[in-house]
């Protein structure tokens, strides 16, 4: 028996290693290990690249070896949100010397970094008027409108709404808060809350179209609580600051902590709702093999997005808010929840589909969010060793 178990473990180890190799080879080029001798990198930069490469390869190996997607996804996804904030704040200080948005200088020179949440509210006004209603930067690749839109199109084609759990640099805040407690304090949140995000999308698109301003960014974005914000100069900007802080505190920290659900993503984020619509063009979704399902309902309880419902167990279809985090796939004891290639029968080549999805999603995760962690760590070490983060 022991020998059988050891053989099984060894087989799993070898399979995981073989599955990791192709992406490990790809990362060698994309993360920049190939270019490490470049004289523009100092020792800390080189250390950052090496760390980024080996941590990514190790996590990918562990996903295959332990057969756990969500846990190892969160190892990057959650710290990446805090690291992004840290890195972004330092970046802004380095570029501008302050964190304030909407100062006349920034607006006039179009220097405001562009975030993916802006996309749905600018799309229709831009198509109708031919003018972009956000003073986003075009000169710098990083945070530039073109860069972000290209990234969004690419990731949407590959992952659809999976963007929210594999590429969103804000999502880790909520995901982290929702992972702190072992059991939820508030056990049920209304299912119809998922339409809140769509209502927000509808409201901000129509309001932005009428006012030709980015209404969500100006008044409602919770993440302005942890990034650039309007300089508090009068009672209007004070009000804005209070709104951002309250929304961030309750929607991103308190409610996810108490419910173990990503409350802001489910009920408030217009970009999430937009991605659910964009998801139609993506090839992957998650399905339940109804015949193999034991009906334990663990997937319903554990889904951080309230996407799995009683109805899903009957029809095999997961609800529209699904962010393809893979939690339901991981926890199903009967292996009845599977990654599925649209247009094929449920369960068809499910292992191959799963591996393909992991390759694509993990590549996006490590290149976008893993890069944030590396950048933040490099900045911290530089600051500690030289006194300057730049």
């Amino acid at each position: 028996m022991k020998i059988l178990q050891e053989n099984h473990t060894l087989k799993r180890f070898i399979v995981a290693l073989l599955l990791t190799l192709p992406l490990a080879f790809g990362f060698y080029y994309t993360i920049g290990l190939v270019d490490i001798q470049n004289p523009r990198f100092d020792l800390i930069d080189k250390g950052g690249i090496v760390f980024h490469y080996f941590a990514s390869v190790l996590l990918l190996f562990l996903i295959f070896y332990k057969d756990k997607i969500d846990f190892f996804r969160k190892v990057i996804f959650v710290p990446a949100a805090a690291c992004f904030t840290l890195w972004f704040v330092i970046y802004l200080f380095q570029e501008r010397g302050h964190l304030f948005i909407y100062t006349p200088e920034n607006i006039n020179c179009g220097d405001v970094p562009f975030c993916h949440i802006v996309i749905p509210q600018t799309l229709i006004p831009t198509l109708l008027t031919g003018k972009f209603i956000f003073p986003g930067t075009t000169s710098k690749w990083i945070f530039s409108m073109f860069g972000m839109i290209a990234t969004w199109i690419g990731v949407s084609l590959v992952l659809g709404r999976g963007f929210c759990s594999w590429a969103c640099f804000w999502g880790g805040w909520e995901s982290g808060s929702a992972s702190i407690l072992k059991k939820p304090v508030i056990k049920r949140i209304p299912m119809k809350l998922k339409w809140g995000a769509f209502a927000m999308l509808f409201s901000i698109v129509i309001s932005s179209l009428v006012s030709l301003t980015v209404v969500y960014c100006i008044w409602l974005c919770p993440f302005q609580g942890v990034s650039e914000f309007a300089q508090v100069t009068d009672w209007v900007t004070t009000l804005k600051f209070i709104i951002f802080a309250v929304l961030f505190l309750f929607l991103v920290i308190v409610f996810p902590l108490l419910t173990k659900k990503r409350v802001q993503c489910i009920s408030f984020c217009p970009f999430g709702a937009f991605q659910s619509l964009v998801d139609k063009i993506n090839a992957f979704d998650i399905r339940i093999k109804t015949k193999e399902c034991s009906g334990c309902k663990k997937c319903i309880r554990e889904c951080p997005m309230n996407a799995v419902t009683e109805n899903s167990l009957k029809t095999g279809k997961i609800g529209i808010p699904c962010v393809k985090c893979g939690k339901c796939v991981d926890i199903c004891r009967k292996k009845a929840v599977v990654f599925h290639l649209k247009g094929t029968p449920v369960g068809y080549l499910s292992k191959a589909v799963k591996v393909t999805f992991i390759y694509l999603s993990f590549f996006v995760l490590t290149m976008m969010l893993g890069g944030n962690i590396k950048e933040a760590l490099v900045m911290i070490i530089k600051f500690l060793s030289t006194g300057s983060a730049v």
Partner: protein
Amino acid sequence: MIIEALLLGLSTGAYCLFSCAPVVTPLFLSVEPNRKKSFKMVSFFLSGRLAGYLVFGVAIGLAGVSINRNLNPEHNIFIGSIISIVTGLLLVLAGLNFQFPKLPVCRILSRYITPGRNSFVFGLFTGVNVCPPFLGAASRVMDKGGVIYGLVFFLIFFIATSIYFMPYLGVSFITKRIKPLKEIARFSMLIIGFYILVFRGFINLLKVIL
């Protein structure tokens, strides 16, 4: 005069539709998908708009040039923000009524808030909203003066702009096919109502007062 009012209405009607769309769209989408109900709601809404236009047409025609001289942008913002507060508040109340029908306040409200009455009231307030097309019509009437002139001008202006609202007659066609749209519209009433009430209403009002 008729051609002038007609051309003004036709040329600015799309703008009218855009400025009313945040209020009107969720309102029409929030009811049960039924062709008769949609027709009734759009009719009530347009009646409200007509009533608003005519009252203003008469008032502006009566006051004429004297208002024209004394009106400044601050007055426009003041009137606009008061209308926004009322419209936003009504939208929030209507949204609350859908979301929490068992609340005591909503039970009382539901006696008074019916889709037909709602549409009429929203028509009235969006009609007198101080938007550029409305100001264009108002300034023309102010220049000329006269009750009859104001009445007829705004009547023609109303007919011309109403053409742009006709697509709303087909909302039941969409809500029948996309079931969640009704729920989304009901949530949107709360969000848009709150936005109009606070950001376009109270904040603009306080900016004028302070």
